[in-house]
């Protein structure tokens, strides 16, 4: 059985569900929005191994039958029934424990999980991921992490064309450091800040699904293409770049990744980041590339083995 765990108003989840439905695949959609009405039982013994049963509105689902899982996280504290509740209320605690327990079950299972917690968490630290990106053979931009305004000022003097962005997975708009930002440089003293030398070139996004590469070339009027007028065309990566994308995805322990690349005018390929839970429908809608179909194909194939 294929398990989909997320919310239907999340477009990658909806697109995947639609693709599986069109194929007539055997899948179960576990609605994260029903978490307040969901329960989970787990038992383990040396004789029996592990057993996990989820109940949604008293309807049991045996998790032992799950061979493939696609998980898209949501924050249940944003749901109406949780929004006003204090962090230590029984309802919030139970929802948190439910999430942790089901996640742990999937992480420990033999199922194909897209993606497991450990590999997914590499995206919580961009510099941590950059070490692995470099090990996979990609170039990475020169960068400084500092909570020392004087050191940041020195880096920016030496690299006047620099950008800043978050270190963590918290979404931030990639911006070039300008004169107006320099007047706030003392704020760096309060929080480690990530400065990176600007790499000029053309953006590419490669989605890797179990070794298959689906890449697009992106033209945009903004440094951060997600926040500008952008157009995308389906692209084929050079063989060695494609191979590095596959290697990197495998090194991170991912079945599905979204890799941000930059090709410089000199033909060098830089990698900025690997998204471990790609919001692929944005790229699908602008390029026409059928990423959801490729993902569904992979899941059905893995389920049939």
């Amino acid at each position: 059985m294929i398990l989909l765990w997320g919310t239907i108003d999340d477009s990658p989840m909806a697109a995947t569900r639609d693709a599986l439905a069109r194929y007539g695949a055997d899948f179960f959609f576990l609605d994260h929005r029903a978490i307040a009405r969901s329960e989970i039982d787990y038992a383990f013994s040396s004789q029996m191994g592990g057993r996990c049963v989820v109940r949604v509105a008293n309807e049991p689902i045996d998790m032992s039958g799950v061979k493939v899982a696609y998980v898209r996280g949501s924050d249940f504290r944003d749901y109406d029934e949780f929004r006003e509740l204090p962090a230590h209320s029984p309802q919030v605690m139970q929802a948190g424990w439910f999430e942790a327990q089901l996640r742990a079950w999937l992480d420990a299972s033999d199922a194909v999980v897209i993606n497991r917690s450990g590999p997914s968490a590499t995206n919580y630290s961009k510099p941590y991921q950059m070490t692995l990106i470099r090990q996979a053979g990609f170039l990475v931009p020169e960068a400084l992490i500092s909570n020392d305004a004087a050191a940041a000022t020195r880096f920016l003097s030496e690299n006047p064309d620099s950008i800043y962005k978050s270190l963590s997975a918290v979404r931030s708009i990639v911006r070039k450091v300008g004169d107006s930002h320099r007047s706030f440089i003392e704020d760096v003293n309060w929080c480690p800040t990530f400065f990176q030398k600007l790499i000029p070139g053309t953006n590419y996004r490669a989605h890797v699904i179990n070794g298959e590469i689906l890449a697009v070339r992106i033209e945009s009027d903004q440094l951060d293409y997600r926040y500008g007028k952008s157009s995308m065309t389906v692209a084929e990566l050079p063989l060695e770049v494609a191979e590095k994308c596959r290697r990197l995805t495998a090194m991170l322990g991912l079945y599905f990744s979204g890799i941000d690349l930059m090709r410089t005018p000199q033909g060098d390929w830089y990698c900025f980041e690997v998204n471990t839970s790609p919001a692929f429908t944005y790229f699908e809608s602008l390029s026409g590339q059928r990423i959801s179909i490729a993902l569904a194909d992979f899941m059905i194939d893995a389920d049939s083995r």
Partner: protein
Amino acid sequence: MILVLSNVANESANELVEMFPPEAASLVTASNIHASFKIAVSVANFEASELAIGAARISPAEISGVISTIAHFFPQEFYYIERADREYVCAEVSAFFVYFLSELRCKKLNPPSSRALSGLGMHGMEWMKAAHSFGIPVWPAELKNGVPVEPAAREDVQSFRATIVGDSVVEEDAPERVRAYLRALSRAYSMPYLCADFISRGDGEYFLRGLWSVPDITIPANREAIVAFMKRAT
């Protein structure tokens, strides 16, 4: 220098630092990072990074050991940051330390992972399955909505705790078989510190009941074992 990463409320962390020679260890908490842990880290050339820890200006190579007693930072620890920004600062500092600790080439108790500042951040359920795969007997466990279902108390079993630090088991009376179990898991997962609860039925077999990988420094014997481990390592 040895870095002790902890929580400002954990008084044992100060005691641990004081067990090392003066200036040999430094306590780092979310509450003092902005003042006494200043960094200029070069991602392309980590060894050339500059660190100012307390009054000492050092390079990463001069850090000889890390004792990380926390799995995560919490937003409320960043009390000096405006409330609305604490979650962001917490995520950024956490992202930095996962990277920084990973890059250091020294003994770490325990090494960080993408999921935790100390150890693999594995759920008990994952540890039980891992132990089972190593042939370690596991005591039956039941969880309901994440909460352990406690079985009825049994008079015919005894539970006890065993802790490994490096190759040494802290509890002197720990049975040899339990020592072997801990050594096997510690080596397999490259976690020099592991603490486990076992159950004995009195028949010479021992069943794993729970396992933790974040060093508990509130126990004096653990602190002594950790200091001895670090001295051996350095």
